[in-house]
């Protein structure tokens, strides 16, 4: 059927370059000739031994966890306000949260960097990177949370209040469990976004540190290091099967499908893209 052919073609389009990356990761030629003259797993062992790559990986993990945590808190708070209350300016909140992702990364990066170094006199470090990442990750958690809250009837919360629970109790025993899987999915997606981000990170990171994308960028053009970069990329894809699967399962539990976003800035929720 025509539709099936279109789907296959589309998937092929998505995966062919990835297959090329995998082939290059095993390419025995240092200058990455095509077609590859031979195959080797040499680059993978080099990738494991590369100290800078390992450090960069863990730095990215740390930054991702911290940024996701902040985004979870702020995104949940905002979603509760928007989905459960009516107030002046409610529509603008959705607009506001999406700005950090929609505006060009270079603008966000330079603005945050300037504010820290010139106005607040705070040196650039992993802390400033986390602040930058958290800012554009808020929208991901927010969208997932709002989508879920709109599907959870407010009547449960009313019932809870009628039964004598106060605000925290209602949140803790009724609202939060209903939202939990959406928050976890949102948090995972925010983490993915932070893990692969390069532009804002470039402007907000300190001298002595590297996240994984920064490490990749600094080695992308070094002929001797490039094959290791490909090997690292393949390893990251393999490791990431776990969180992707988790995110999907958690979303699927609630009968919807999770959207995803890895790099740059996309936003998916189980119900729709933008609230």
């Amino acid at each position, binding site marked *: 059927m025509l539709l099936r052919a279109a789907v296959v073609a589309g998937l092929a389009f998505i995966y062919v370059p990835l297959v090329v990356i995998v082939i290059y990761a095993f390419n025995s030629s240092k200058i990455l000739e095509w077609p590859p003259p031979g195959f080797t797993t040499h680059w993978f062992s080099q990738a494991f031994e590369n100290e800078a790559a390992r450090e960069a990986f863990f730095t990215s993990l740390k930054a991702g966890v911290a940024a996701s945590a902040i985004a979870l808190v702020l995104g949940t708070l905002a979603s509760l306000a928007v989905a459960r209350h*009516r107030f002046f*300016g*409610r529509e*603008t909140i959705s607009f506001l949260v999406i700005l950090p992702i929609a505006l060009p990364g270079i603008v966000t990066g330079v603005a945050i960097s300037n504010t820290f170094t010139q106005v607040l006199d705070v040196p*650039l470090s992993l802390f400033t990177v986390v602040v930058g990442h958290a800012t554009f990750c808020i929208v991901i958690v927010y969208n997932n949370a709002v989508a879920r809250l709109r599907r959870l009837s407010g009547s449960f919360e009313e019932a809870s209040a009628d039964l004598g629970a106060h605000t925290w109790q209602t949140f803790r025993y009724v609202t939060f469990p209903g939202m939990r899987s959406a928050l976890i999915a949102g948090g995972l997606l925010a983490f993915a976004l932070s893990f692969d981000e390069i532009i804002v990170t470039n402007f907000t990171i*300190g001298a*002595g540190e590297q996240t994984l994308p920064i490490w990749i960028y*600094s080695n992308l053009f070094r*002929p001797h290091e490039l094959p290791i970069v490909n090997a690292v990329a393949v390893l990251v894809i393999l490791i990431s099967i776990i969180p992707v699967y988790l995110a999907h399962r958690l979303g699927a539990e609630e009968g919807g499908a999770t959207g995803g976003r890895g790099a740059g800035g996309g936003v998916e929720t189980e119900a729709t893209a933008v609230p």
Partner: protein
Amino acid sequence: MRRRDGNPARTAWLVVAGLVVFMLALAGCGGGSDDTTGAGGSSSEALQKLGKGEGEVSLISWAGYVEPDWSKPFEQKTGCKVNNKEAGTSDEMVELMKTGQYDGVSASGNATARLVAAGLVAPVNTDLVPNYETVFSDLKDQPYNTFEDVNYGIPHGRGANLLMWNGNDVKPAPNSWEVTLDPKVAAKYKGKISQYDDPMSIAEAAVYLKTHQPDLGIENPYELNQEQFDAAVGLLEEQKPLVGEYWSEAAKQISAFAGGDVAVGTTWQYQYFALEEEGVPVQASPASQGFLPKEGATGWSDTWMIAKDAKHPNCMYEWMNWIIEPKVNAEVAEWFGEAPAQELSCKETENKNFCAEYHAEEPDFWKRVYYWETPLADCGNGEENCMDYNDWVKAWTTIKG
């Protein structure tokens, strides 16, 4: 679609209006603390006494300047861990220095004056750098490293930009820049030309015009009046459709030559060596290294500068002394392919003819090499109508289109 409470559009416009008013107020006021430290070359002080190393040093450098072969021994000897950030252009280096996160930078002449004027670097006390004494004398007290009679850095080495070509694709072997800059000759290699992605390319065109259009009266390719500037820019605009790639990182050019995407262009010795090693049939102007095309060439003479308020000044001084240690500067020069700054290095090079090949001890040779400089409105001959660096940057954007 239900209408929500409050008029959302009105809210949005109120917020935007508020921000615009806030911004204009800030712009109008103008006063308050200056963002960047004020200009003033000699207002900062050089270190008086060398103390204990701080344990690390953060450097900004050109590709190939800070390599494990000599940075690891440095770390072992001084206990200063080296954090290195490679930059592709002088603009990047200035931007990185502005963040205040780095202790030192290997600055070329088109960055040094700007760094000093912006108050980003401190004078260097050469008494604290023992190896400085035996640096070549024609590198000391030069206009690109000494400002108002105060030394601002330690020379690293110098070199000329090379013309490089793929021996299989470009025949006969060129000996003039016309192969990339003369529209008629360059047309033969349409789509295969590799040009440095930086306003300094305007100086390359000016060097070419100095020989081929002498009635323009170009003396110094960095001091160009409107007419000379327009001629150089015009030449580069004619070149644009023929360019295969503008390279801003050394390794990007290496991959382009290796991949067959470009066949001829300006380069540094570093890329030439790397491509030779990969077995790509490149040659440089003309067959032997260190020669110049007949018009001469732009080049560089780089200086290690120390940041004002550097966090690790002692380690930085140790580094500056280390990099011109005779054995080290010899390694550095041979690895990158430039003339060493340290006289005593000529005895330490693996290739015994290295200094001769690179004209390290021939001041006359360097008179045909126009080191990168910062273009200023001050033409140096009493006139003030030369194009300044902002003009060069704007023109470069227009050339690339």
